[in-house]
Structures are given as C-alpha cells and as structure tokens.
C-alpha cells in the first residue's frame, strides 16, 4: 500500500552465517572455532575451509595485536600462547584457529560490509576470521582491552588506539547504548 508514512520498499537482506556459525543461534552463542582446515572440512566439504583458513592467516598477520614484551601478551592470551615476531621486537598471540561464515547475498561483499572485501576473506561468499586463545581457557577474538598499550606496526602506522573506552564501558559483547 502506498503510504507517505512508510518506505515503499526496504530491500535489505544480509549475510547469514553458515552452519558453522551464528545462524539460528541466540545472541549469546559463539560461532564454532576450527583448529584446522581438516576439522573444518568435516563440516564443510569443498574449498570454503581452505579459503577461510588462508584469509584468516592473512588477517592474523596483518591485524593481530602487537606487544612489546611477552609477559603483556601472555597476560591476555595465556602462557605459551604468544610468539615473537619481527626478530623478537614484538610479541603476538598465536592464531588458535578460525571461524567460518558465509555471505547469503554475495553482492554485499563488495561494498565494504563488516566482513567486507570478500577477496581478502576467501571470496565465493565465505569469510574467515582468526581467533586467539584466551588466558582463562577457550578462545577470544582480537579486542583491545583497556590499559593495553598502543602498538606500532611497520611502515610507521600505529593501530589499536581506538576502542579502549568502548571496552571499559562494556560495549564489547554488550551494548553500545544510546
């Protein structure tokens, strides 16, 4: 019905994550973490797992938090869960595994959606995200915590300088509010 009050059409449908992940789950559920491509392939035959693994490794190398000493890193991710990089200059959490998801609507991939840039994340509508070990057991994703230091990547670019306040306010896994 034509109405001045109501949008004529709202043509929005989104990514739903594949059986690996969030689809059909309650808000509090976590996506399934795969520790290997083989474990992933048991659920998802085909190339999706290879693509997601590769994409996750790439993302991990590019975006995993960097710490100036091993202790600070292990405090976040647990003993033995960090590795030295760049000739021992920095320490990064090990990639414990990855999560896999699928874009329902492939067109969305190209427009910079959250898991944007499908090329980098495996293409074909699948994406992968690296996960780390958590210090208290289980897994965690790369969230910056309050008090963690800003770290510098090569090329003279610092990252991780936004997000600490959001973490403190409880926005991580909670609510941004407003």
């Amino acid at each position: 019905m034509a109405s001045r009050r109501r949008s004529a059409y709202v043509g929005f449908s989104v990514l739903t994550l594949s059986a690996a992940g969030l689809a059909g789950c309650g808000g509090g559920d976590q996506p399934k973490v795969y520790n290997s491509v083989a474990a992933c392939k048991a659920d998802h035959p085909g190339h999706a797992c290879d693509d997601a693994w590769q994409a996750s490794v790439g993302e991990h190398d590019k975006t995993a938090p960097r710490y100036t000493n091993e202790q600070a890193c292990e405090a976040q991710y647990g003993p033995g869960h960090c590795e030295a990089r760049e000739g021992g200059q920095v320490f990064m959490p090990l990639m414990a595994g990855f999560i896999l998801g699928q874009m329902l609507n492939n067109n969305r991939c190209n427009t910079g959606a959250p898991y944007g840039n499908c090329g980098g994340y495996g293409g074909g509508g699948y994406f992968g995200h690296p996960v780390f070990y958590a210090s208290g057991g289980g897994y965690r994703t790369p969230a910056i915590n309050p008090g963690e230091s800003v770290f510098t990547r090569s090329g003279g670019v610092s990252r991780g300088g936004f997000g600490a306040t959001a973490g403190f306010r409880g926005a991580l896994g909670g609510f941004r509010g407003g």
Partner: protein
Amino acid sequence: MAQRITLPVRPDWRRKVEERGLTWHTAADGSPYWDESAYWLFSEAEIDRIEAAANDLYELCLKAVGHVIEQRRLASFGYNPTTIALIEQSWARRGWQPTFYARFDLAYDGEAIKLLELNGDTPTSLVEAAVVQWWWLEERFPGGDQFNSIHEKLVAALRLWRQNAGAARGLHLTCVAPHLEDEGTIEYLAAAADEAGVETQFIALGDIGLRDGDETFVDLDDQPIVSLFKLVPWEWLLADPFGQALARQAGAERISLIEPAWKMVASNKMLLVTLKELFPDSPYLLDATTSARVAAGYGDYVRKPVLGREGANVTLVEAGRTLEARPGAYDDDLFIYQRRTRLLEAAGNHAVLGAWVVNREACGLGVRESKGPITDNLARFVPHVMGG
C-alpha cells in the same frame, strides 16, 4: 488510544528476522529481544501527534544546541577545552551537511507526549525499526500501514551527502568488532549507502591506523580515511589514545565524521535542562534540573547521568524514596534530575516510544518494552501498526 494486542509469533521468526539483519534477536538469558508476541496499534491521529512532537522537538533541540554553543556553556556539559573547540567548529561549519539520524525516547500515556531522552549521536535499534518491523508488517498485515519511512529517508540523506561530498569521497564505516549488534547495524548502513551510490569500506575500530608524522588516519590498506561513519559515541573516541589526534585532524578538516561533533550535545542529557529553561511552555518537556534540592520538590523524579546509556546508573525516586537504582559504568558523570512521567502500560509492560528523525524529518517509530519502569538494554523491541 494505543492498544497492545497479542498474537502468535511466526513459527520461524528467528530465521526471518536474521534474514533481515537482526542476529541479536535473543537476549543472553534466552528471552526474546525482538518480541513479536504482541504489537502496538496506534491510530493515525496518534501517529500525527507523535510525528509533530518529534519534528517540534528536533527543532527545539537545534535551537538549544545553538544556544549552549553561542553562550559558551559547553563546559557545564562535562566537556574539556579540546572537545568544546571541536563542537564549536562543527556547529559553525554544519552548512549543507545532512544530519543523519536521531531517536527521541518519548513517554506517552494516551494523552500527553513527553520527551524522556534524546539520542543524537549513536542511536540504537535502527535495524529493528527501519527494516525488521517493516518486513514483519509486510507479512503479518499485508496492505497495513506503519510510521516507518526511516529507510527511505536514510538513503535520501546519504544521497545528499554523496552529492555534496563529491563522488570521489568514499565512506569508511566503523564500530567495535566483534560485536553482533553493532556490526549488524553497520551492515545495514552500508547497504543503505550502497543504495545511495556511496562506496563504503568497513574497518573495525581497533584496526584504524594512525600514520606517524602527518597523523593521517588510515585503513588496513594504509589508505587515508577521509569520511568515517562511526557507530561509537564521540566521547569514547575522544577519550581513547587516538582521541587527541582525532580532535586535531577533525579540527583541520582532514577527516570528517558522521555524525558531526556537535551531535554529542544532542545526546547529552544536560540538554534536557537547557530545553526546559529555554522553552518552559513546550507541552513536550518535563521539568529537569541539575539541583538535587529542586528535584526533591518534584517528589517523583528520575536521576540520570548526562552521558549515560541504556538505563545505566539511572535512579528512580518516588516521594523521596528510591524505588529502583541501576548500576553501570557512568558513575563518573554529571547527573540531571527529570520529573517522572507515566509510560504507556499494558499487562505490566512499560513502553517507551522511540521516534526517529532523519535529516530533520520525523519518519518512524520503534517501541521498546520493559517489565520494570526503567528502560534498559534488556527492553524488548515490539513492532507497531498504524490503523485507521
């Protein structure tokens, strides 16, 4: 008057709302956040009044923000000199810029409509209101009507932004990640931008880079971020380690953010006090004060942190006795006191009306319900219908 009508949920409602982007439909305790076991039915005359209230209130807010800035009263809103300079500058330069969105939380008891809060910077429940309830109506009441052209208006605002900003300027979008709700909202905003012909690129908040030397903010490909849609309150960004650089870069117009910095003021509950002071006769404004002594004279009142969100640190006082106090992370903030008013209520459900304004035009409604009198982050989103 508005009625709350129960009806059976769609058997596969979870899948249906997920398809429309709402993956956070269930609270951590397993109870539904998206609650289609009922809907609110408003008459067209009621919607007319809600629409008029939201339009009026938005204009009053613009005047109040301008007043606070021109009278140099921003320090009393809790801002430091850096932030004040940023707000003043963004206000002076606002010019052609569309303001994208804001949500007023209104109390309505069948007669009076009163402003409870304003959320001008990072309003939540956008996907629920603009998309999910639109599709719910489409399926439940084909041919029915709803106060909801939020999507159309957002696309139009983004189109206007594109025309003014120049086609070459892509838009980066950012939020805390991983975060189901915020990433889902960004996903929707990216789709709306796409529809408006704006090229977008997502970057997680923690991934935003700051280049040494010239302090350019860059994405993961080290490309400059020139325009940034942020689903993070300004105050949080400015308090972060990169906050000072952001203030300098925004001040130098080397980066522009949506919403603009002055929208902070339109999210600050201190503005409720300013509004009442400037427009004492507005039928939409409740008494509000910063003085505990004045508030005691109200009898029943609500104490709120000026920067609070989702009901955190809100205290409800009735006849001088504290009825309910919510904990939260906003204890360090300034507080205001607002005279208490009645909410729409049915079968123990207290409903707050979220009236959406996009680029200065009231264009939609989203109802949130709580069992208790304080609307918090567990408040359920309940769809609505506009009937004859």
